[in-house]
């Protein structure tokens, strides 16, 4: 089951994702895993439109995707996109195996504290990251592939 990139990025599909990650990894489909977007038709239309021709974009809720994974093997070169670490951790606990997690951005908002310029977490999100790391899944902060990788573990207390 080839998940080629699993990325946390609260902007989901946008300039950086299209111009670098999708191209560098020859991604054929982007699966957006987010409960809010799964219920928001406007955001879904925008996501589908923002993808370049030939790139398939599908949106699933977290639990919905866990169920789908049980029945459907992934065959295409795939990028998973999340907005936060809690959803990633839920998916891993639901049976998804990931080689590593790339963190592009979880921007500052109420209730979060800042770990780096583009990564901020609530206590729950921080715990979710710790859970992933405890399962030996490396979590790497990296905005675009050319940036140096920062191990998220080194940013946690």
């Amino acid at each position, binding site marked *: 089951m080839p998940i080629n990139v699993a990325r946390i990025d*609260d902007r989901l599909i946008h300039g950086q994702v299209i111009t670098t990650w999708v191209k560098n990894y020859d991604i054929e489909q982007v699966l957006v895993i987010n409960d809010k977007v799964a219920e928001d038709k406007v955001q879904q239309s925008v*996501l589908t439109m923002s993808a370049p021709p030939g790139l398939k974009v599908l949106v699933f809720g977290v639990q919905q995707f866990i169920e789908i994974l049980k029945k459907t093997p992934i065959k295409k070169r795939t990028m998973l996109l999340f907005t936060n670490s809690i959803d990633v951790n839920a998916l891993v606990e639901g049976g998804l195996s990931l080689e590593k997690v790339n963190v592009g951005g979880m921007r*500052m908002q109420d209730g979060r504290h800042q770990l780096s310029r583009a990564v901020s977490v609530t206590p729950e999100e921080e715990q979710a990251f710790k859970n992933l790391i405890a399962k030996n899944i490396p979590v790497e902060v990296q905005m675009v592939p050319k940036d140096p990788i920062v191990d998220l573990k080194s940013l946690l207390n």
Partner: protein
Amino acid sequence: MPQPLPIILASHGPFAQGALECAQMLMGEQDNVHVISVLIDSNIDNLRQEMQSSYKKLNQGNGVIILVDIMGGTPCNLATELLISHDDVLLFCGFNIPVLLEVLNNREGTLNDAKFAIEETFPESCKDVRQILNVQQEQSNEL
């Protein structure tokens, strides 16, 4: 007397701000232009809020022109959310300076007028200058 069409310029980094400053250097101060700069650490919900509120604030009833840098980028995606929910939004991606100047010169008409002005200007705006030079020299040799 219709109000000039308001404009939102949005980009990654300072491109939109720079484009406006460039245009103002050529054409003088411009009113009712709002710039949105998406930075690495900008919160997406704040940006969405800024896009929505600037549309509401600027719109005088004749619509709003939005120019963004690239298709599929965050500025374009946020503007598309507006486009889906409002009929009086004209959204173009990939704008350049000649397009911006043309839009600023065509703010007295309708959104549709602005649309035609953009579509006419854009293909003519990025040219191999040497080729134009060569064509002119050939012409000037004719008597």
